[in-house]
């Protein structure tokens, strides 16, 4: 019996090997690339949970949504400034609460249906009423109505200088209302319990973007094909997105020509890309900001809650070292506003000052130093491990006699403590939900991150007042001024030390053109092109 099993097994292995060997080298040409320049393959480790634009919020979400849907306003190139897309123009009334958008003529969904103001109204209301992740960005919208086929009026609850930026996110992607309604979609107030269109949207797109979703198998692959009704540029007629969780495997597949883009890789992996090979490195700034949180509660933060110690920490850190760790393209913002946002300021070259840091420690009564636990989750920011960041912090702070004890933990547990304001000293990052100064106001006393640092509004009334002005000020020059003032205050007096604005480093095949990285949508898939 065993003999038979063994013989069968050997036979099976031999058959497999024969088939396998006959296949070797068949798929790729000499350069390792594919001869089919009409299909582009992208390797990612995505975080997609749903492809319903009214629900999704994941980091890689807009890589897909920008390929299959369109918004009234959009981002272009690597810029974070909203530009017209489905809307050709807008006006805002004197109160700053009523926005009127005029839609472009001749735009069609992939079904062939024309894009109308009714579709915009349905899409916005559906996002609001689904009460899912995406709804958070639509919080300030109180009423949406169609004046005619091509005019939409949006009423806001309060003035919002970031409204156009929010409009560029998938939360405001315009869906084909006829198709979505047919599939059980609803924009009614009870949509959170009655809408049934998500399953359909997870398998087929209903937008007017350059591509149509043909297939999505979670954790496996996504297939996009050209939308026949899209009138703009579409270079590759087919895009295949393959899930490759391990970054090293992505690089190996790229170098072998099996994929054209290795998108989910970090600074450590791109170092292995050899010049003159099949691939090249692309580095571009992101809006992801690493920072240290020093809890302001004396009970939780203990020594770290002392403003003098907080300032000493800021002076003791070697920011250029963090910039090197983060890789090519890393930036050093002055404080909580990233480069690319209104009024952003950079950290001065000679900010690190150990003497000043030691003086502050002495003034605080800690000349001989103290020991403090630093929490760093087993997580990374654009490929740079938080534990590596913590090790660098430990090295820097040892110079002013602060003995850092690194405590690592699961991200879920660390985040939970962070959100509840229980962590004394912590490595964290901030990645904006939308690309506007308003999103950064979370760091103000009493706001989202402020609360997590137990930084009460009473701690700095001026900052709170400036923040309120920044939320509603539409004039860019005035807003930049307010932004600058806030950055200066937070750089000198806050429970944070902002370390580095991370770059995104990834790799593409040498024959891939049209690669421009944007932090929101990552890549414009329709602009990618394989040279022959």
């Amino acid at each position: 019996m065993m003999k038979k099993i063994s013989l069968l097994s050997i036979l099976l292995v031999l058959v497999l090997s024969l088939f396998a060997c006959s296949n070797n080298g068949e798929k790729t040409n000499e350069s390792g690339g594919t001869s089919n320049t009409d299909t582009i393959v992208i390797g990612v480790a995505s975080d997609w949970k749903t492809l319903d634009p009214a629900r999704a919020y994941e980091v890689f979400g807009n890589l897909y949504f920008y390929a299959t849907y369109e918004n009234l306003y959009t981002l272009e190139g690597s810029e974070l400034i909203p530009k017209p897309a489905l809307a050709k123009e807008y006006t805002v009334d004197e109160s700053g609460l009523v926005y009127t958008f005029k839609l472009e003529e001749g735009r069609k969904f992939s079904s062939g249906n024309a894009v109308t103001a009714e579709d915009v109204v349905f899409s916005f209301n559906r996002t609001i009423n689904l009460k899912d992740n995406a709804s958070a960005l639509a919080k300030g919208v109180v009423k949406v109505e169609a004046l005619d086929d091509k005019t939409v009026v949006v009423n806001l609850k309060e003035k919002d200088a970031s409204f156009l930026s929010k409009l560029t996110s998938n939360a405001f992607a315009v869906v084909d209302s006829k198709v979505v309604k047919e599939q059980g979609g609803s924009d009614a107030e009870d949509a959170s319990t009655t809408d049934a269109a998500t399953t359909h949207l997870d398998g087929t797109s209903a937008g007017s973007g350059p591509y149509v979703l043909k297939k999505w198998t979670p954790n496996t692959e996504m297939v996009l094909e050209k939308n026949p009704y899209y009138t703009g540029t579409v270079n590759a007629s087919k895009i295949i997105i393959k899930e490759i969780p391990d970054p090293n495997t992505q690089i190996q597949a790229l170098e072998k020509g099996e994929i054209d883009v290795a998108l989910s890789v970090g600074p450590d992996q791109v170092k292995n890309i050899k010049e003159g090979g099949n691939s090249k490195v692309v580095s571009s700034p992101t809006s992801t900001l690493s920072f240290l949180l020093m809890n302001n509660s004396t009970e939780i933060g203990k020594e770290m809650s002392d403003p003098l110690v907080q300032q000493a920490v800021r002076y003791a850190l070697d920011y250029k070292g963090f910039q090197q760790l983060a890789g090519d393209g890393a930036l050093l913002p002055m404080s909580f506003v990233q480069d690319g946002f209104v009024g952003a300021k950079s950290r001065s070259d000679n900010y690190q000052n150990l003497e000043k840091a030691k003086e502050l420690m002495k003034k605080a009564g800690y000349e001989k130093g103290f020991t403090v636990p630093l929490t760093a989750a087993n997580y990374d920011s654009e490929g740079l491990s938080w534990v590596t960041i913590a090790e660098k912090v430990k090295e820097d702070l040892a110079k002013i006699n602060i003995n850092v004890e690194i405590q690592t933990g699961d991200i879920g547990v660390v985040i939970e403590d962070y959100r509840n304001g229980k962590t004394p000293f912590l490595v964290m990052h901030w990645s904006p939900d939308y690309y506007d100064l308003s999103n950064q106001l979370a760091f103000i006393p009493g706001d989202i991150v402020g609360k997590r640092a137990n930084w009460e509004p009473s701690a700095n009334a001026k900052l709170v007042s400036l923040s309120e002005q920044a939320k509603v000020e539409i004039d860019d020059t005035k807003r930049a001024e307010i932004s600058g003032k806030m950055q200066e205050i937070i750089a000198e007096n806050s429970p944070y030390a902002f370390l580095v604005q991370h770059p995104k480093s990834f790799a593409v095949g040498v024959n891939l053109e049209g690669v421009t990285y944007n932090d929101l949508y990552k890549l414009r898939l329709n602009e990618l092109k394989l040279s022959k």
Partner: protein
Amino acid sequence: MLRFIARRLLFLLFLLFGVALFVFILSHLVPSDPVAANLSQSALNNPEIVAAFKEKWGLDQSLFSQLLLYFQHLLTGDLGTSIRTGRPVFDDLMQFFPATLELSIVAMVIALVLGILFGTISAIFRNKAIDHIIRTVSISGVSIPSFWFALIMLNIFSSVLGITPGPGRIDTRTTTPEGGTGLLLLDSFISGNFQLFSDVAMHLILPGTVLGFFTMGLIARQTRSNLLEVLSMDYVRTARSKGLKESAIIVKHAISNAMIPVITVAGIGFCNLLGGMVLVENIFAWPGIGQYAYLSAVSLDFPAICGVSLLIAFIYVVINLLIDILYGVIDPRVRYE
């Protein structure tokens, strides 16, 4: 025999109940909140969204009510809906499990063939150079971390030598065919698509070898020690004294008697394959149950975590049952009363 199987299947029901209860309680003891794990920063600050999320997933109810509801659904065969994917857990398992099963079977075949072969050679040439080499390889198989081995193998055989393809179940520039059993080797064979069959086979060899390497080490070591023990027994000595050829003694008399402990080890090895899946699947971009389990765990997706646990427990019990039945097939002295 039938009574034995019926008894074991009844035991399986109790075991699955216990596993479900244990995993449910354990996953709710984790000091982390599924609301925070699944909602964005902005959404978390919106009480309406938080309330809708809790209501949708039953998190607004007491733990006991959630448990009762979960078991009510479980009794009707409903494993619930995944918080992460929004799809029925059963559908998710049916989607991801075939990839894992296919890889496990190939890994097991490689492990069995090479393990028994190496173990036998090692026993025959005891303390010779070939024995030492095989023992070193076997120990390496048991001790090398699978993720590291996977990375090295992928680098050598795929990147440097170009003998095997890179990640995934099929060529990256093609898309996975839909329908069928999900076992691509079988599906492509049945449909007569031999180009796909060869592509799938090629993609299976490297991850299959990496995954099977650990079990191969176990089987080789077990085969060697059992065979040595059997070869020193009286009946083998009698066979030798009767003038039987050494090859006939080994093949006809020794190997089958040395196989029972090997089958036990192979069964445990097969179950261990499933445990080693997470890292190997991750490196080879293999869309299987290991990756699904990992992603569900980091999202605190309780229904999915419970679903995966029940599936794995089911496989453990079924494999152990098959092993017990195999004992009787190989050794007629084994009885099931």
